[in-house]
């Protein structure tokens, strides 16, 4: 099957992610330096991890001199969803993607990169993927640098408003497909109900956030896969 494999198309598709990341990583930069990290350390964290929730969780552990095992487990739990995304993405890769490419692409397989790649109607090729991950990675790094360096001079109201950027992107990915596919809408409702239950119900509240996301996502997806498996022709199209 023909692949989506144009570098420039990848760049174009990655730009919205890049802009979204600029604001979120900007917020991270502010948070990191205000917590006591240097600008250089904040930048390094972003350039080596590229994971919003994981980095926000790591900063307090690092500045308080927490145990390494605590940091490792926190990252494992918060980022475990990426393992599911990588399995899912592996099914979308075209024949042009070789083993060394997989090692590189995995490094920037973020929620948004994954969402865009998996939203493609065709398999994705290596050139497309390199284009897709390039500007988000730059946006994530540069936003952190600017936020860490200049964040203190921004009014708190602007920083607060930027907090919504990442969720705006998530909503822009999910809502249009809820409209198109009723089972997707139902899946979203189930995931949201579960997520709220873990936030507000006693006992369930004690479950760490990283586990919550995995449990909510796995349960609602499995439920929908059992109730409404995708049409057989789509299965065939994936072969």
């Amino acid at each position, binding site marked *: 099957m023909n692949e989506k494999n144009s570098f420039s198309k990848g760049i174009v598709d990655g730009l919205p992610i890049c802009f979204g990341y600029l604001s979120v990583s900007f917020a991270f930069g502010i948070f990191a330096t205000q917590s006591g990290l240097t600008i250089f350390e904040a930048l390094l964290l972003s350039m080596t991890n590229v994971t919003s929730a994981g980095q926000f969780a790591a900063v307090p552990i690092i500045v308080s001199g927490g145990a390494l095992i605590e940091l490792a487990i926190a990252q*494992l739990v918060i*980022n475990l*969803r990426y393992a599911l995304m990588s399995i899912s993405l*592996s*099914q979308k890769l075209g024949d042009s993607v070789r083993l060394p490419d997989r090692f590189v692409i995995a490094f920037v397989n973020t929620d948004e990169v994954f969402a865009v790649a998996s939203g493609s109607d065709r398999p994705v090729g290596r050139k497309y993927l390199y284009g897709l991950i390039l500007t988000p990675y730059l946006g994530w790094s540069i936003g952190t640098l600017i936020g860490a360096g200049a964040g203190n001079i921004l009014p*708190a109201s602007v920083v607060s408003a930027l907090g919504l950027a990442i969720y705006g992107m*998530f*909503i822009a990915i999910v809502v249009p497909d*809820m409209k198109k596919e009723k089972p997707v809408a139902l899946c979203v409702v189930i995931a949201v109900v579960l997520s709220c239950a873990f936030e507000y119900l006693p006992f369930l509240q004690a479950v760490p956030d990283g586990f919550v996301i995995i449990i909510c996502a796995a349960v609602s997806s499995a439920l929908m896969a059992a109730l409404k498996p*995708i049409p057989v022709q789509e299965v065939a199209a994936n072969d």
Partner: protein
Amino acid sequence: MTKFWVYLIVMAGVTYLVRMVPLVLVKKKITNRFILSFLHYLPYAVLSAMTIPAVFYATNYGASAAIGFVVAVILAYFGKSLVTVAAFSCVAVFLAELVIKFI
């Protein structure tokens, strides 16, 4: 701060392994219909669970976040791009907080 480098290596190592191992190991095309369906629904489920209720705590006020959320959902419903939705929902939060402080 040499301890920082140890933290950095551990953190980046864990994060990378979680992403890399499945992507490198899963090479075959999955044909099981249940698993394919599961993977089809997964991105929506992950993003939804990450968004609600966290989005309502993402700004200085629950009310401003709620307004930003509603603006984002409406724009997304009418098929606006990722950047448009993200930018206008931030602007909505900013304006809402101006009003909230004024009140």
